[in-house]
């Protein structure tokens, strides 16, 4: 009887699989990415590498010395003190202390300051407070500090904003109205993001992170690209663009940037536009399918990210964690999964950072 190995499913629970079964899942996952993204699947030697990872009995795996990559955290300041249901462990710490803990105890290579709303728009009325906190953080840390928030175009639609909500308008077949609302939201979001980021630059900010870009669809991505463009013209901020999902949801469907339709772009195409806009780092996301094994999910994620790295001229810091990058959907993803997924991203996809 063939030996069986514990492999997690995308929802985190363990199943037992033979090496042949794991290999079959790896191939199927990679080919799914290749088919959707019109990119190359992994090679035989890469399937062998992944199979070794999954059959390795060690709970935690790592890369050889010299292969380490940059380890950075988005929304990290909130991860310790936050307890919002989707991240955070509820330890009462200030944001400054959270950053210091990540720098001094967790060896983070960069850190990020973020507000609990974690969207650019709500930061606008409290920008003076955020400037003050950022200044304190910058004066008491050594690692580069990002200020991070989501473009979150949802906040520009009813009931939170001035424009009609495409989620309400589209089901009523009010397509022109839904599209117009998104186009107007793009203009407002660009203005808000540029305003807030410029104010943070004024107090010496090192960098900003547009996190979870594209969460509200193609308009979200378009607003971010234009904000990046404007900020690179007017400031010397380093800019990271991190994504929300593996492809751009077409809530508008016709929006373009520099002649390229945004809806439906996968990471290897997204990065080209991010680069064109002038960003310095790109954070691709590949979503985890909870009904599939981690072997399927990880091979799929690595296939997408490998193509993205190959297409990119800027550093790629892949998003790893709850439900992304091949890791299961867990508030705090298990170390056996995260370490395997991280090794695969470094050794096969050749990412520059996690």
């Amino acid at each position, binding site marked *: 009887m063939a030996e069986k190995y514990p492999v997690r499913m995308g929802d985190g629970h363990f199943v037992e699989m033979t090496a042949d079964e794991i290999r079959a899942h790896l191939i199927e996952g990679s080919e799914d990415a290749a088919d959707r993204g019109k990119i190359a699947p992994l090679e035989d030697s890469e399937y062998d590498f992944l199979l070794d990872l999954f059959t390795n009995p060690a709970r935690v795996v790592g890369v050889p010395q010299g292969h380490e990559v940059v380890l950075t955290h988005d929304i990290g300041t909130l991860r310790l003190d936050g307890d919002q249901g989707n991240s955070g462990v509820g330890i009462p710490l200030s944001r400054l202390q959270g950053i210091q803990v990540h720098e001094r105890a967790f060896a983070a290579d960069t850190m990020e300051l973020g507000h609990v709303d974690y969207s650019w728009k709500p930061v606008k009325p409290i920008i003076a407070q955020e400037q003050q906190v950022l200044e304190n953080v910058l004066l008491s840390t050594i690692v580069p500090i990002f200020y991070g928030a989501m473009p979150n175009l949802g906040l520009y639609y009813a009931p939170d904003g001035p424009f009609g909500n495409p989620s309400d308008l589209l089901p009523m077949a009010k*397509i022109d109205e839904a599209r117009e609302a998104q186009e107007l939201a793009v203009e407002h979001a660009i203005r808000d993001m540029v305003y807030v980021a410029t104010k943070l630059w004024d107090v010496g900010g090192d960098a900003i992170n547009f996190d979870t870009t594209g969460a509200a669809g193609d308009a979200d991505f378009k607003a971010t690209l234009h904000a990046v463009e404007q900020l690179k013209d007017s400031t010397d901020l380093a800019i990271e663009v991190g994504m929300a999902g593996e492809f751009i949801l077409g809530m508008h*469907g016709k929006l373009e940037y520099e002649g390229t339709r945004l*809806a439906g772009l996968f990471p290897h195409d997204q990065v080209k536009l991010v680069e064109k806009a002038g960003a310095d780092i790109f954070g691709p996301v590949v979503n985890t399918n*909870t*009904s599939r094994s981690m072997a399927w999910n990880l091979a799929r994620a690595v296939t997408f990210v490998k193509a993205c790295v190959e297409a990119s001229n800027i550093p790629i810091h892949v998003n790893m964690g709850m*439900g992304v990058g091949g890791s299961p959907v867990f508030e705090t993803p298990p170390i056996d999964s995260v370490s395997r997924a991280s090794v695969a991203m470094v050794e096969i996809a050749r990412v520059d950072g996690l």
Partner: protein
Amino acid sequence: MNEQELMEAAAAAIVAADEEKAVELARQALELGLDPVKVINLGYSEGMKQVGDLFERGQVFLPEVIIASEAMVAAVDILEEGLPEAEREKTAGIAVLGTIEGDVHDIGKGIVATLLRVYGFEVHDLGRDVPIDVFVAKVKETGAHIVGSSALMTTTMVGQRALEQKLKDAGLRDKVKTMVGGAVVTQHWADKIGADGYAEDAQEAVQKAIEIAETMRG
């Protein structure tokens, strides 16, 4: 144009979201004396299925799906003239949808609502941040076949379990099927709370809803 060619042209008109062509073909089908139900099921619905597959693969997008569905609705309106009264009233099923109280994420749920309408469901979308009692009251009022709840946070997904219990308390649980979705929701969670259906994405949700509604109609 023979029957088969008309079916294929009807499907193609939907994929191309060409309402004018879809309507013209529907009139032609009636003139040729074709069975309207067959033309809807094997022609226009087949086109809509292809649109759904393209949507799932990220090759067409929500506005295009809606434009295609408008073309289908216009064609079906014409074909219904050739149907008996009882057939005209039919829907694929009645669905009540909403995002659980405390949760304001509703893009995914909105897409599911739109696609269910496209596939002929009567949809009652309760929106976001919906109290459990409101779900239960709407199920009771509409006689829904399916109640779908969405949760994007681990703090709100517990509301899906409460919904199961409140439907039991109201004596409705054996009359309605429950479906759960949302980023943090999994098949394992659906099994744990006793929900009848779970889907990874909007297109899968629609397929499962169709299967469930067909089972309920027997």
